[in-house]
């Protein structure tokens, strides 16, 4: 059976390789993917959204609806891990035999972490705020922010980190992030535009409609960053402790 499966997989793989002859050449400027919609984005995106980073313009504005649901996917994944791992309190000891135990206090690690965490978080804020001008944005900045909390938990321990950043707060931020994103969409809807039509914000903020797109994108990037940060940390909490938050690294 295993041989048969392997044979079928190889056959299918060979077929897929064979179909590539029908596809346009690698990096062909005349290929449909490079010449149809992308041309419009490259020519018009700055004019229409006043955002110099085209990737962000496509991601957070033209296809902002997709990105909102990508954020929901992140949120949903965190919630799924939490719901599955954090069942009711276990009565007997878990059968994880070789769980790493922390012995003593590592001064070098702790001091290094102490030095690093604040610059990391500051850098993350830059990455978030500069998403629509240069590479970066909510997802990347959120990951750096999340990593800073994970570093704290790794260098110290889970319990003391949880005292600073409670589990309920983590969950609150993860929901809040999506809510900021969707809320910006809903407010544009209330202001008379369509859902996620940032142009509708222009009147409220006293800026031109094109400029409103830029601010709208900044807003949703902040929302994304909240969710990604919180879910990164929440995933670490649940996975590192096997779901009960009282032991583990």
């Amino acid at each position: 059976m295993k041989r048969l499966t392997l044979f079928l997989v190889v056959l299918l793989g060979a077929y897929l390789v064979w179909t590539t002859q029908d596809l346009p050449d690698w990096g062909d400027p005349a290929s449909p993917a490079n010449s149809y919609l992308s041309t419009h984005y490259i020519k018009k995106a700055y004019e229409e959204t006043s955002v110099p980073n085209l990737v962000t313009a496509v991601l957070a504005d033209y296809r902002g609806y997709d990105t909102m649901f990508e954020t929901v996917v992140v949120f949903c994944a965190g919630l799924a891990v939490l719901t599955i791992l954090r069942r009711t309190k276990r009565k007997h000891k878990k059968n994880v035999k070789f769980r790493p135990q922390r012995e003593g206090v590592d001064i070098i690690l702790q001091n290094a972490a102490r030095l690093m965490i604040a610059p990391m978080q500051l850098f993350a804020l830059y990455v978030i705020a500069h998403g629509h001008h240069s590479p970066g944005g909510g997802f990347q900045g959120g990951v750096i922010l999340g990593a800073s909390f994970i570093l704290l938990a790794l260098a110290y321990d889970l319990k003391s980190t949880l005292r600073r950043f409670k589990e309920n707060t983590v969950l609150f931020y993860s929901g809040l992030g999506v809510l900021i994103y969707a809320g910006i969409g809903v407010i544009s809807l209330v202001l008379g535009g369509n859902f996620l039509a940032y142009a509708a914000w222009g009147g409220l903020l006293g800026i031109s409609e094109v400029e409103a797109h830029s601010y709208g994108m900044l807003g949703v990037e902040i929302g994304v960053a909240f969710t990604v940060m919180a879910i990164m940390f929440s995933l670490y909490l649940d996975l590192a402790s096997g779901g009960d938050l009282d032991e583990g690294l």
Partner: protein
Amino acid sequence: MMSAQAPILILLIPLLCGLAITLVAQKSKNLAFFLILIGMIGSFSAACSTLIQVLQGSAPIHYRLGGWPPPFGIELVIDHLNAMVLFIVSGSALLTAVYSRNTVIVEIPDRVHHYYTLYALLVSGLLGMVATGDAFNLYVLLEISALSSYALLARGRGLAYLSTFKYIIIGTIGASFYLLGVGYLYIKTGTLNMADLSQMLASPDMKESVSIKTGFVLIIIGVWVKMGFFPLHGWLPNCYSRASTTTSCLIAPLMTKVSIYVMIRLMFSVFSVDYVFNTLQFQQAVVWMACIAIVAGSISALAQQDLKRMLCYIVLAEVGYMVGGVWLMNSNGFAGAVYHIMSDVMMTLCLFMAVGAVIYKTGDSSLESMRGIFRKMPVTATAFLIGGFSIIGIPPTCGFFSKWYLITGAVETGQYHFMIALLFSSLVNAVLFFRIIEIGFFNRFDDSGHGIHQKFEFSEAPVMMLAPMLICAASLLVIGLYTSFILRNIVQWTIPAGL
């Protein structure tokens, strides 16, 4: 003004309510229930408003997200087909939400608010899949509905974790197939908007392109995995039968039907009748596969000793009905399949709710738990009976009419094997349900044979469970009685040109 925004509100209201539950309802189970109810009511009323708009106007509704014109932005496109599916999906999600009042607290006592958040996310994911007019956006929403369903299914009974893990693997492979297929379409056309894609794919050299054909096959296989079509169904029975009552009421009727909708949408709105049936030559093979799905599903259902597993295999057979109906290449068959989406959601929901009530009361889901059911729980038994009649296809329940159209389609195209499979399945279903009726109605005596009269106290499920169940059962009759109205006003419009 609100009615113009109705298409987005259908999925936005459950999403926002789901988030609100995470944010504010951590302490109070009642608040969580209240919020989910608000979300589902809002979604259902928006879906009603959209359906009315579609029925009044003749052109599909286009809703531009972010105000960007397609194909640059994403749009929602609502025509008769998805207005109907949106209506039925949001309606059954509302009924299940009401029903869940008693069951969730028993089954997932520690995480009611997270359960309801995932519930809301699942519903908005499914509704989004149905509403969208963009092939990639469909994938994103497919991921949301899949992820939330994994979490909901894993909190089930017995080995639910294991079967959900298998589902995660297989479901992810299915989703990857879909994504890979969309990738092929994108690399050849440079667009993701469904209407735009279909225009480009109509050109003759696209029709001959090997990579487009590969893309089509990959997409269809991906969707088949998601709906549990016959050779790809292995994950479904274990997963759905071990799920908690509310989860199976929510997921079992909706996931498969939404996947069928996605298949129809991609076959006829992205590709075309001509492409699917004339350029590609495997229409006959798919109808045969559907026949095997129906026969295998029915026979496996007959072999089950557990009510929920039995229902799961019936769901598999029903998937065969709809796939077969769509691939018959006949307008009556297609109409039967579309009509069956609607009726099948309601009949599986009705049966799962009835079985859920039995489990709630007896804690057991074997056939034996139906003993004396007509005396103990007469209302539940009636709902179960109507649902069963509809599955068998006894008029005037809606199951009869969908089978009628499917069989007409099979006869018109001369594909008698599909007709035989349908009739065989009706026969097996009749055996199945009359066996249960026998246990429930006559088998009131003890097995020992001494004729000791076992007492069956009247102990009916709570009203919050009975009311949605009865609405479901009544809707089976209503849909059946209004068949000609539904066909004339909705289903007729969904038949693609050239069929």
